């Protein structure tokens, strides 16, 4: 397919350490710096939101003020200064664009550099892209075709206007506004994100995709995504993230909520390549994300796949609440840290319904002076008759200045439930490396090859378009780790 070739070429063109570090120069509509009730009101007003949503935001904001910072993750950073950031930045547009033609050409150029030419993709790739530029969704492609099938795929702000009943019913129903400090902040100030609704019995024919990108200096990105798969529906959703190079740290506190009803399936794939900071740990994104899916219906399935190579700090636990009988949760993860990066990531599988099953495959790779932690919870509730979990966590250390950690919490409260957890730690052996070198590979290619092999099980679960890019990223993010 043409899109694949193009993606491959673009990925191959990756030359520098961080090729996505360019800044787009466009007019920006900024709210004043800092966070207070007025900012929350302003965001809501700018978006012409209904009263109930403003109320919800304000409840979240007031709750947030009282919440302590979460301390349990194995990450270290100076206290966040919430007042030294902008909470609203919208590209200046006189009115909302009706089609791609009306969009600022510079924006489109940015996407072009990112490797997601919207026009091309709309025609060729069969990927519908909801592009988020800083905080406001600028364009949603492929819409007309999806609309015919009754699929709603738009920005969440738009959904608030056009489908308020769906948003009101499901927003905060998986991640309540009081969930944790970062999610609560998001609930108060989220500016945009995607909304997907797949109606009963519909199988979404294309992979839905959003490309997130943080552009503005000192703007946090607080997108909020809500995906609902009605009875018997299926959707695969791709999320890619990049951010330009900045000296300061930027906070990214997103929330993703998934709801799967009876017999529905949601597949959510992420390739996260936020700016990781430089070799000395200056700059880089703080990626504090709450992702959670509820398998509400019988036989429903939610599958998370993530390839995390970017961000200075990753704090993220895509989880599944397995309520419906026979529901299935999956978590496939590759987390790569290099230089001074820190990642504390994993999942939670909460088994509530009967015969629910979950599978966790997590691969952590640490290089440089980085720390990579897998943290996961598997909980078998009293009523989880016949539930099953299998977990495999493997860590790979490259060099002797990094750390790789595994912290599983396994709670089994039903005798008929079965839980199995295995974890190993290894390194790239000198023998493996030498063997590759002797066959003529450069040491970087050799590392990339071996690490890709180590991650194979996870990368395989990615949709084609992503898999190629992800494989390249694995190699790029480890550059300079073997010398």
């Amino acid at each position: 397919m043409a899109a694949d070739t193009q993606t491959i070429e673009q990925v191959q063109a990756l030359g520098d350490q961080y090729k996505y570090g360019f800044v787009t120069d466009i007019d920006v509509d900024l709210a004043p710096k800092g966070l207070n009730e007025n900012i929350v009101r302003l965001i809501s007003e700018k978006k012409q939101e209904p009263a109930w949503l403003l109320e919800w935001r304000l409840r979240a904001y007031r709750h947030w003020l009282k919440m302590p910072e979460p301390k349990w993750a194995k990450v270290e950073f100076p206290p966040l200064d919430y007042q030294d950031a902008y909470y609203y930045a919208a590209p200046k547009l006189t009115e909302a664009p009706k089609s791609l033609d009306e969009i600022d050409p510079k924006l489109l150029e940015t996407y072009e550099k990112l490797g997601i030419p919207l026009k091309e993709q709309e025609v060729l790739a069969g990927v519908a892209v909801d592009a988020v530029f800083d905080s406001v969704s600028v364009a949603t492609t492929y819409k007309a075709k999806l609309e015919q099938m009754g699929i709603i795929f738009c920005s969440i702000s738009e959904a608030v206007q056009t489908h308020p009943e769906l948003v009101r019913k499901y927003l905060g129903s998986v991640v309540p506004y009081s969930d944790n400090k970062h999610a609560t902040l998001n609930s108060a100030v989220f500016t945009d994100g995607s909304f997907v609704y797949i109606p009963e019995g519909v199988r979404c024919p294309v992979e839905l995709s959003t490309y997130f990108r943080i552009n503005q200096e000192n703007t946090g990105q607080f997108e909020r995504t809500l995906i609902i798969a009605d009875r018997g529906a299926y959707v695969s959703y791709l999320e890619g993230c990049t951010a330009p190079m900045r000296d300061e740290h930027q906070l990214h506190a997103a929330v993703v909520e998934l709801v799967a009803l009876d017999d529905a399936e949601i597949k959510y794939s992420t390739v996260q390549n936020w700016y990781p900071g430089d070799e000395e740990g200056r700059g880089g994104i703080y990626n504090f994300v709450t992702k959670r899916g509820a398998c509400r219906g019988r036989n429903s399935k939610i599958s998370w796949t993530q390839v995390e190579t970017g961000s200075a700090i990753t704090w993220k636990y895509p989880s599944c609440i397995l309520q419906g009988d026979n529901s299935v949760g999956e978590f496939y993860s590759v987390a790569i840290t290099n230089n001074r990066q820190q990642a504390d990531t994993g999942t939670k599988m909460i088994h509530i319904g009967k015969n629910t099953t979950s599978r966790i495959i997590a691969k952590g790779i640490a290089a440089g002076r980085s720390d990579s932690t897998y943290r996961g919870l598997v909980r078998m509730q009293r009523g989880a008759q016949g539930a099953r979990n299998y977990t495999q966590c493997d860590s790979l250390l490259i060099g002797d200045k990094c750390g790789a950690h595994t912290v599983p919490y396994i709670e089994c409260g039903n005798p008929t439930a079965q839980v199995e957890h295995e974890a190993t730690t290894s390194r790239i052996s000198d023998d493996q490396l030498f063997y590759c070198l002797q066959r003529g590979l450069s040491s970087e290619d050799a590392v990339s090859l071996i690490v890709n092999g180590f991650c194979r099980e996870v990368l395989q679960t990615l949709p084609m378009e992503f898999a190629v890019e992800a494989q390249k990223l694995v190699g790029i993010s480890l550059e300079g780790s073997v010398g």
Partner: protein
Amino acid sequence: MSVMETSASGTATPPWLTDLRARASETYEALGWPTQRVEDWRYTRLPERKDARGPGAAGAPELGAIPAAGANRAVLVNGRYRPDLSTLVDLPSAVQIGGLADVLRHDPDLVELYIGRLARLPNMPMTALNTSNLTDGIFVRVPAEYDLEQPLHLVSLGHGDDAAAQHPRILVVLEEGASARIVEHHTGSGSYFTNAISEFDLADGARLEHVKLQLEAPAATHVAGNYLGLGPEAQYEGFVLQTGGTVGRNEVHAYLGSSESDFTLNGVYLAAGRQVLDNTTRVQHAAPSSRSRQTFKGVLNAGARGVFQGKVLVERDAQQTDAHQLSRAVLLSSGAEVDAKPELEIYADDVRCSHGATAGELDEAALFYLESRGIPPTTARHMLVEGFLGETVDEISIEPAKDLIRAEIRSWLEANVDKKSRDPA
């Protein structure tokens, strides 16, 4: 408090001990009684007994009922050494076994060399509480190259009601190349609270086989810290059985600070009723080429909860570490729960580290197979549980302790596992 004053009266307490107790007391006051908000205690609620600091009335302990697990026996009652109940025969003068208070009187410098060196106070409220009450206990020292072949049976008896607290302290020193076999046995009667600390200092090439039996009275509460330090090429082979108490928590903290040391720790816990039994281990590999192996197996009946928290820490310099840890639990009926947190924290790249954890019920196919051969369901369940625990118990090298443990398992099965304990969905 009255007993402490009595035992201290007439002898001058060495200044370092006064100082140690004061520091411990300060630490304890600062940390406070552990609650489930503390990560280390998230799975176990320790019923608050902070006011119960004094030992219970010294009643007549029933030593006769305690099976012997070795020719030589040293006995503590409510944390106080009782020479009248101890039998120590055939020991060469170089081997020192006796009351800690006695050694503190005659040779305080010797105790100072070792005590509290492994059982460090920071972040450990219960260790601090024990240390702040330090007056007596058992002291064992085996001289260099001596092999104390006969198993040594250390018995700690608790006695008293809810207001009774005892803080038994055991200090074992194995000098270079020495070896010993120790059975540490905790039991008693009443609803007393035990907060035990045992320190095992193994010098170069020393070897210790250690069996810890937590067989406290059903209404008692047991918290213990076993602190181990392994010198170069030292070897530790440990086993923990927990079935006693309403709440039982056994912590093992092993510091592998020298190269080529070898640490093995296995454990079995059997819990029924409202019991909570917790095994918490922390193995710190701080030097190259050391090895650790841990296997814990739990069997839980309705209403009971088992906890396994095992942390393996491999420091930057501990290359060629080989560490493995396994937690397996069988839930016999609904209402039972197990919480496991096996944790790896690794900073060296040339290592082999792994852990595993499983939980589930007895294998239905195996049960049916046994029953299809005419074996009654209750017997079949007993056989499968004994089979599940068997491989681990078989590894115990102290024979009298092994027999005692097998008997404990059997009587626990008789008392707790019948065919009714399996309840269909």
